[in-house]
């Protein structure tokens, strides 16, 4: 393979300068346009009920209030288009969760909003709320959602589990539970809409998926897609939380702007953001695995229930991903998996880094450790004997022809962590401070996979200017993860190794490229990267022809490297050729659409090529458990990730460190509580605790590169994976430390104390 000039180097992020100097504009920072109005959401005070009347007269008379918009004002459809099309913009007949939007108050200044919101009287006849998926699943349960309470039942049927278990020497069972996780991105949701003179709408906001927002706004206003332009502003973190949610609220803001004919902005407070936006699905799972005495897995059954909240939104997709990832990265001949997404009278759960996988990885990896205990086998060794290697077949029947770096992640992680020595030391720890070490191995299907095949494409456009500087546009978004840098490097490399300083990304807008799908599923590098690579090669070929003429050799023999066109000792700078092309009217721009390779899925058997490629990882956590206070401290964390090719190693490390710390929060502190009346009890940073600089261990990122031939320069997506194994590895480490099995996340001090019978088990 050709030496790479730019890909593989840790260049400074192009967006960092504006961010460190305070000049980056997030939506709420956009300079106030003339006549700007402010929006405040009227929310349901109860988790379930019928709307009898909405009294807005008093609120309308508040000084500064311009309008109050309700469902019957919607000119188009009261619908946010997404998978099942069951999600509405404003509740009209029924409310299905506490905090559900019923209307919007629009005012000249933000001070009027709270006063007016307090004066809106919503007359609701309460209905009994179903807050637990188990209640909602009962055959006679009231239908929360017109589609019924079970949104999905995804399955895997492989081999014959009965005979598999009959073959097993040891069978282990376990029941596991995980709680909500709140994204807690630091920038609260903010959106702004402004009517255009031609009966259209422009929308700005921090978001992951401008094309989702475009389709929601067009649907709500009943106008064509070409009348809606959505422009992503600098986005202050997302992690899945700004995937589908901005669609609903952009619909509301656009509606308010449509009626008033003026620009309207909505910016959530932290509390509003937490009660109104999606979260990670709570889950309940029951696992059973069987193995031969040598550790070889022969059968696995899993039943998983995911608490989806009141609307299906992304749950069909989240629960499908959970299904594919349910049995870990192992060879298992006999498998039966049943995953259900179930409606409850709570805010819709949705996308969150890992997308349904941290829950099942926790369960699977816990039950694997229990199996290792029973077999008296080292848990890492048990995994080594079962993990997928190149040429193996997954539990969904997909053969893996390439790019399976799992074995190497396991090896590297074991070596760098000194696993054996630490495991031994942990076993000898005595007293009230107990050491433990635990591991998790897992995989992640990159991209949307078979479930999202319909929308899995991405367009890019590249334009070289007459001075040799370059601008490119894509439809995927930068939300902090570093996509802009990665794609800049891919463009610089694909144009012959020019300096990345010559390349800039335009702001992401629905007007620049065609619908490129969402920025989720770790797909931006791989999808947009491939589209860019194709577009760049078209331009480079034309430039190469011109360079060939200058160098008096056929274009095919011109070598392009280091930003120079070369023939023997003669060479010409990229900028010079660009200038010449420009003067000779040789086209210097190109667009390309990258279509994801085919995938397949059989819904009855759960067999098929679920994803185009997988990323792999091994996590090892070392913890100390204070059995007197119940406090768990993570001391060290090793995270080895097969990313195909690290386009920018520093960004890869950054993703690992950030993901691991979010994972530590998920494992040990983040506990979002719903009261019996359906309200979220702790919607702020004083009571919903996320990790601070005082909570983090020494983190050792380990990069493994097992190139994916279809990926740009061998890269495959991985941004979500660093969080995914943390809950599992930490739970295994804690179980190892205290010699008792952990079955629930998060592991709070009171859970540890309950295991030692110092206090009673907390009820969550």
């Amino acid at each position: 393979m050709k030496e790479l000039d730019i890909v593989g180097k840790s260049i400074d992020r192009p967006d960092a300068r504006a961010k460190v100097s305070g000049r980056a504009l997030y939506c709420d920072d956009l300079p106030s346009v003339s006549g700007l109005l402010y929006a405040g959401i009227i929310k349901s005070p109860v988790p379930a009920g019928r709307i009898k009347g909405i009294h807005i007269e008093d609120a309308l008379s508040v000084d500064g209030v311009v309008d109050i918009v309700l469902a019957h004002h919607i000119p188009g459809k009261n619908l946010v288009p997404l998978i099942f099309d069951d999600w509405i913009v404003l509740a009209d007949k029924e409310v299905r969760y506490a905090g559900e939007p019923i209307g919007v108050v629009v005012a000249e200044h933000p001070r009027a909003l709270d006063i007016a919101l307090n004066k809106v009287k919503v007359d609701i006849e309460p209905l009994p709320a179903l807050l637990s998926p188990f209640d909602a699943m009962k055959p006679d349960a009231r239908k929360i959602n017109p589609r019924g309470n079970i949104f999905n039942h995804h399955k895997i049927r492989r081999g014959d589990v009965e005979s598999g278990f009959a073959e097993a020497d040891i069978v282990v069972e376990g029941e596991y539970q995980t709680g909500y996780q709140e994204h807690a991105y630091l920038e609260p949701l903010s959106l702004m809409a402004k009517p255009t003179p031609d009966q259209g709408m422009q929308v700005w906001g921090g978001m992951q998926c401008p094309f989702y927002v475009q389709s929601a706004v067009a649907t709500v206003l009943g106008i064509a897609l070409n009348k809606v332009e959505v422009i992503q502003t600098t986005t202050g973190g997302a992690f899945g939380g700004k995937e589908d949610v901005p669609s609903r609220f952009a619909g509301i803001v656009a509606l308010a702007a449509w009626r008033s004919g003026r620009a309207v902005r909505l910016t959530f407070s932290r509390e509003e953001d937490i009660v109104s936006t999606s979260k990670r699905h709570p889950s309940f799972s029951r696992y059973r695995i069987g193995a031969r005495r040598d550790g070889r897995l022969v059968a696995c059954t899993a039943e998983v229930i995911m608490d989806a909240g009141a609307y299906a939104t992304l749950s069909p997709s989240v629960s499908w991903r959970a299904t594919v990832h349910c049995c870990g990265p192992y060879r298992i001949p006999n498998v039966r998996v049943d995953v259900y997404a179930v409606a409850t009278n709570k805010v819709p759960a949705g996308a969150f880094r890992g997308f349904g996988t941290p829950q099942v990885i926790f369960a699977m990896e816990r039950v694997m450790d229990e199996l290792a205990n029973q077999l008296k086998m080292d848990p890492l060794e048990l995994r080594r004997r079962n993990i997928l290697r190149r040429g193996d077949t997954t539990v969904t029947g997909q053969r893996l022809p390439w790019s399976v770096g799992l074995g190497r992640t396991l090896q590297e992680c074991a070596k760098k962590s000194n696993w054996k020595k630490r495991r031994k030391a942990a076993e000898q720890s005595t007293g009230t401070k107990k050491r433990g070490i635990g591991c998790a191995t897992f995989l992640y299907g990159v991209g949307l996979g078979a479930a999202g095949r319909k929308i899995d494409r991405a367009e890019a456009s590249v334009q070289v200017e007459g001075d040799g500087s370059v601008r490119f546009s894509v439809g995927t978004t930068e939300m902090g993860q570093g996509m802009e840098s990665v794609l800049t490097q891919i463009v610089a490399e694909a144009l012959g190794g020019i300096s990345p300083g010559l390349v800039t990304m335009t702001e992401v807008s629905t007007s620049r490229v065609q619908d490129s799908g969402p920025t989720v599923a770790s797909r931006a590098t791989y999808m947009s990267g491939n589209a860019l690579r194709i577009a760049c090669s078209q331009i480079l070929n034309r430039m190469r022809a011109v360079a060939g003429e200058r160098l008096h050799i056929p274009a095919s023999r011109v070598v392009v490297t280091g930003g120079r066109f070369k023939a023997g000792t003669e060479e010409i700078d990229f900028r010079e050729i660009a200038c010449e092309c420009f003067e000779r009217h040789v086209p210097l721009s190109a667009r390309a659409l990258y279509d994801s390779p085919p995938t397949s899925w059989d819904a009855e058997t759960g067999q098929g090529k679920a994803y185009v490629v997988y990323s792999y990882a091994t996590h090892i956590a070392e913890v100390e458990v204070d059995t007197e206070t119940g406090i768990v401290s993570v001391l060290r964390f090793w995270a080895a990730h097969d990313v195909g090719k690290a386009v920018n190693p520093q960004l890869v490390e950054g993703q690992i460190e950030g993901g691991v710390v979010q994972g530590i929060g998920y494992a040990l502190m983040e506990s979002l509580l719903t009261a019996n009346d359906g309200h979220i009890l702790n919607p702020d940073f004083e009571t919903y605790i996320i990790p601070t600089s005082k909570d983090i261990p020494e983190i050792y990122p380990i990069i493994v590169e097992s190139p994916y031939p279809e990926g740009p320069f061998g890269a495959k997506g991985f941004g979500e994976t660093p969080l995914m194994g943390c809950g599992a590895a930490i739970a295994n480490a804690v179980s190892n430390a205290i010699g008792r099995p952990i079955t629930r996340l998060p592991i709070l001090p009171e859970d540890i104390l309950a295991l030692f019978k110092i206090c009673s088990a907390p009820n969550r």
Partner: protein
Amino acid sequence: MPFQITVDCEVNGERIIRTLPATMLLSEFLRQELGLTGTKLGCNKGSCGACTVLLDGKPVNSCLIFMPQVHKHTVVTIEGLGKEGELTDLQKAFIEEGAVQCGFCTPGMVIVSEFLLRKNPCPTEEEIRDGIAGNLCRCTGYTKIIRAIQKAAKCRAEH
């Protein structure tokens, strides 16, 4: 109309005299009145640190300070740190060490680290962790922020 008060203060080296509602917060004043939107709002109640600015050289959560408290005092925001558009060594270190992801915590982090380094030019890792403990970052996992502060400290020691 809320009770009005005249506030005379200095922001980023410039003297500013304004008549304002007495209940106006420093964060609102900076963002809305002066258009200094580098100061971010992540919680509006003193628990995230995104709105940190220097008040008479000490870090405060500007979402908790009322404008009358700023009368006859000096405020420095992220926009006022470097000289004439130049980045400080600390800001440069944030870029070079990869300490910036979404960037929403960054202005507050830079401000609080600036204070930390002025007070304690060669802090230990533990002191850095303590120094930034009031500022949440959801993206980076803090590791690279700590490295950036260490790098800036080293660079200042050498000059």
